[in-house]
């Protein structure tokens, strides 16, 4: 089993190194003529004014929140799905109850209107 993980470790390192090399090549062969005008922030031709870090919509936060909860749900469901063949018939119902309880949360969020884009 560990040889598989050694392979994955090697692969992850290769997957970092190859893009890194690709990004580093132009450092040596590309021209470098920096100027203030060039390094300005692009904003459709006008100069950038005021605070760059604009106010962030709290709507996005709600999406991330619901995603977190459903992410956790899936880590319970994956072992359930794998083990289903070796479990008694009742285990399906247990899993379904689990899903339905969390589904209520989604319905609640819908009812409260936090999912609608405003």
């Amino acid at each position, binding site marked *: 089993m560990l040889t598989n993980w050694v*392979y994955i470790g090697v692969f992850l390192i290769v997957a970092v190194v190859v893009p890194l090399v690709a990004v580093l090549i132009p450092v040596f062969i590309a021209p470098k003529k920096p100027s203030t005008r060039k*390094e300005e922030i692009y904003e459709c031709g006008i100069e950038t004014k005021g605070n760059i870090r604009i106010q962030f919509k709290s709507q996005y936060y709600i999406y991330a929140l619901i995603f977190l909860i459903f992410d956790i749900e899936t880590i319970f469901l*994956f072992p359930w799905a794998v083990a289903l063949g070796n479990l008694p018939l009742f285990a399906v119902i247990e899993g*379904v109850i689990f*899903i339905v309880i969390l589904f209520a949360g989604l319905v609640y969020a819908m009812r409260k209107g936090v999912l609608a884009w405003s």
Partner: protein
Amino acid sequence: MADLINLIENWIKNILLGWGVTESLAVFILQVLGSVLVVIVCFVIVIALIWVERKLAGRIQDRFGPNRAGPYGIFQSFADIIKIFTKEYITPVGAEKGLFNIAPVLAMFSVLAIWAVFPFAINVVGGDIHVGVLYIVAIGAFGILAILMAGWSSNNRYALLSASRSVAMLISYEIPMIISLLVPVLLAHSMKLSVIVEAQMPWNIFVAPLAALIFGISSMAEVGKAPFDLLEAESELVAGYHTEYSGMKFGMFYVAEFLHQFTVGALMAIFFLGGWTGPLAVRWPILGVFYFYGKTFFIYLVISWIRLSLPRIRIDEMLNLNWRFLIPISFINLIAVAIADRVMLEFNLARWIYVVVMFLINILILVAALTIAEKNEKAVERVEFSPRPIAVPPGKESK
């Protein structure tokens, strides 16, 4: 001769052992060679895909596409590569340099790393781990992170706006994607990709068409190309979270996007189209590799076709599609498939009855969901704006 891949593997291994290398080190070197090979093949495929995609886009939009560099413009991608390697890097003023430079590498990494676990043929599997499916889902997290880093560190209002929009959208669409991936796991009773591929009798797309549909739509949204490309809607957000990137750093985002679409094709092939399986693939594993890449390429073309035909959808439509349609329907599908699978396992039915029942259940859910959705759909309110005042030169206003 039957097994070409093993033959080459053993040949290299014997050479290494002949040099006095220990067994474990030889295996390690083989692993390094294998992973480098897979990564290089990915890059080469992307170079080819960029040409194919541009040619296809040209034909669909009644243009020629690239046709200058070489016959049919096949050297266009190479010309682009030379250009992009010699372009100057511009770092915008006020950017956070560390994060700004890590982000493109991370974006590429998040797509490449998925290829570590793919089964290419019957005995050609990279990392055949017990948690393969979850690994694929988990690696996607780094892509989201890369977008967030790029958007934040660019010090550009539009980049940040686009990054936060993209991330909100990507994580929303990840929920139906994960739930629909649970269906093949459930049918194979394993998270090992090799087992999922071998358990498909017939292909999962016939057993679980609804899950395939949901996975297809949500992973198209994950790729972030049209019709789901509103994160880089040129008319609204300049060019998306990579507005401030230039040269190869931009190139990494670009290549990652193409490779991601190809990877989605590979995932579709593995989970729903039987991966490497096909006639004679067990006897000649090299054929399995061809089947795998062929199916992947087919799905890639289908996705390209869809995205070149559809207009971009609005962000509210997009979020409604996800939260009000895809997520509920994927949960209902999961519950139905789980119950049907377990009950039919209990009665030990013939395989063909199992498949037919599963197929009918899937179609039934889809039809019911579409009917309900149509009934609940509010009539689109047409907003009529009063005519805007026309600009007149100062001093000549009416009244």
